[in-house]
């Protein structure tokens, strides 16, 4: 059986002049269609770098990224990214931001009316249909992040890449958006890779959690299966044995075996 997405012995070394830093080494991972995979690791270990490699925004130094057995090395709408800081275009309204993606990706494939319906469908999915004419500066951080997700979903990507999508939000908003993300995943069955710092978020949302060792030359330390039934409910899970076990495994990995070392040179 061939995987949907395959990270085949990936390494990444940044070189500037004569100085070079090996950030990632020998990353091997296969992801199936419809899987929700989280990547967790300490700050600076190379999570964003790994995501950018999959997105094609950064070139791999060794190995290859294979999507449906095709090597990908340039960015494209089949791997939509929700960036760490929403990155909506501030001069466009909410609607126009999504429209920029839709009119580009579906040019010639959908009529104008169909495109409009598609934009509204995606904004409705993230519950932002009421704010179509607002500019990013006029909506809250959580709303911006939702529009960013709508923009990414509207590209109908093969893989959705989320870089700490809820990182900058308060706990309540974050919980709300996590629930929405689970709902969207259940409804559309997207393949998702999500970077996170948050152990509970990783366990709650993922089918598998990829734990990364500390840099430099970070690699995958362990992959944990989360055998929890879907749909998942955060309150019911709070005292669930499997949930707590998974949570403990991740915490142990992060804080016992791969403790964050300040200035690990």
């Amino acid at each position, binding site marked *: 059986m061939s995987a949907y997405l395959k990270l085949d012995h990936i390494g990444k070394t940044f070189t500037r002049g004569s100085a070079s830093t090996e950030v990632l080494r020998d990353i091997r991972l296969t992801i199936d269609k419809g899987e929700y995979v989280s990547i967790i690791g300490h700050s600076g270990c190379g999570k964003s770098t790994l995501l950018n490699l999959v997105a094609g925004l950064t070139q791999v130094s060794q190995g290859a990224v294979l999507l449906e057995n095709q090597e990908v090395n340039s*960015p494209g709408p089949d*791997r*939509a990214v929700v960036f760490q800081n929403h*990155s909506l275009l*501030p001069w*466009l309204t909410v609607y126009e931001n999504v429209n920029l993606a839709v009119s*580009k990706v579906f040019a010639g494939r959908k009529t104008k009316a169909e495109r409009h319906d598609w934009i509204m469908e995606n904004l409705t999915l993230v519950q932002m249909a009421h704010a179509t004419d607002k500019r*990013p*500066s006029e909506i809250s951080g959580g709303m911006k992040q939702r529009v960013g997700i709508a923009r990414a979903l509207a590209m109908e990507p093969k893989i959705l890449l989320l870089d700490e999508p809820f990182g900058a939000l308060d706990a309540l908003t974050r919980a709300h958006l996590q629930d929405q993300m689970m709902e969207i995943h259940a409804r559309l069955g997207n393949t998702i890779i999500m970077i996170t710092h948050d152990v509970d978020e990783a366990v709650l949302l993922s089918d598998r959690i990829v734990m990364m060792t500390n840099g430099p030359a970070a690699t995958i330390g362990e992959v944990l299966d989360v055998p929890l039934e879907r749909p998942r409910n955060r309150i019911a899970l709070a005292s669930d044995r499997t949930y707590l076990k998974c949570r403990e495994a991740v915490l142990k990995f992060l804080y016992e075996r791969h403790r964050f070392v300040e200035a690990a040179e």
Partner: protein
Amino acid sequence: MSLPATKSDVVVAGPFKPRPATVVPLAAQPRRFDLRGLAVKVAQSVLPPIVVLAILLGLWQIAFSDPNSSLPPPSEVWAQSRDLIVSPFFENGDQDIGLGWRVLVSLERVAYGFGLAAIVGVLVGALIGQSIWAMRGLDPIFQVLRTVPPLAWLPLSLAAFLDSRPSAIFVIFITSIWPVIINTAVGIRNIPQDYRNVALVLRLNHVEYFFKIMVPAAAPYIFSGLKIGVGLSWLAIVAAEMLTGGVGIGFFIWDAWNSSRLTDIIVALVYIGLVGFMLDKLVSFLGALVTRGTSSN
């Protein structure tokens, strides 16, 4: 700094806060207060310049009222150049026309020269801004060319075009293009990587990237360049017209000087100042309109 401000806010706001016990009188009060506040605001911005202007005119009148003085006082300007002041758009023949017409002729040249400078400047700036090496190589050269005074370009321009009209337009073009190029390039360099990434993921082509990402993202910079450029254009046209002739406002000054009509020159100066001021405000207004929302994130 913020502490005293908050304190005084509280003190000022206190008496006008509606209290539930006194609903009826207070319902009307805020509006009356607002009207008065508006009147005060208008008076605050309009009155001082009028007063200062009156004082300056008075001083000028006193200083030059002596019949042997070298320059005319305001009363004489009014007496001799009244037609120029009160009717900008009269037409009594080929060279005897209102200053409004002359300003329009000059503005037309500015429109050609500056319009061209704006288009070429943004395009060249966008090209340069995308390459670090182009920026490093060309920026010092532009910084030098930028300081060349408008009139210094005129002889070359006349030699190249052999005609005064395109020469004047070229002088405006070459004077006003540098700040547009430099500011656009800096604006393009400052486009956040995030916006570039969005364009990359969407696979925008060069034309789409230019219109949908680059121009709007750099618009605040572009407009500050245009604002400097339009001011320089207006400086250049008046100077260029003095030498190239025609019916523009610059040549009018030169002509008035040659026939010793000092009062006409003074009126023309006021026209030039007011038009320059309005050009500046016009570009600022357009900039504010276009960059709505861009600078705030």
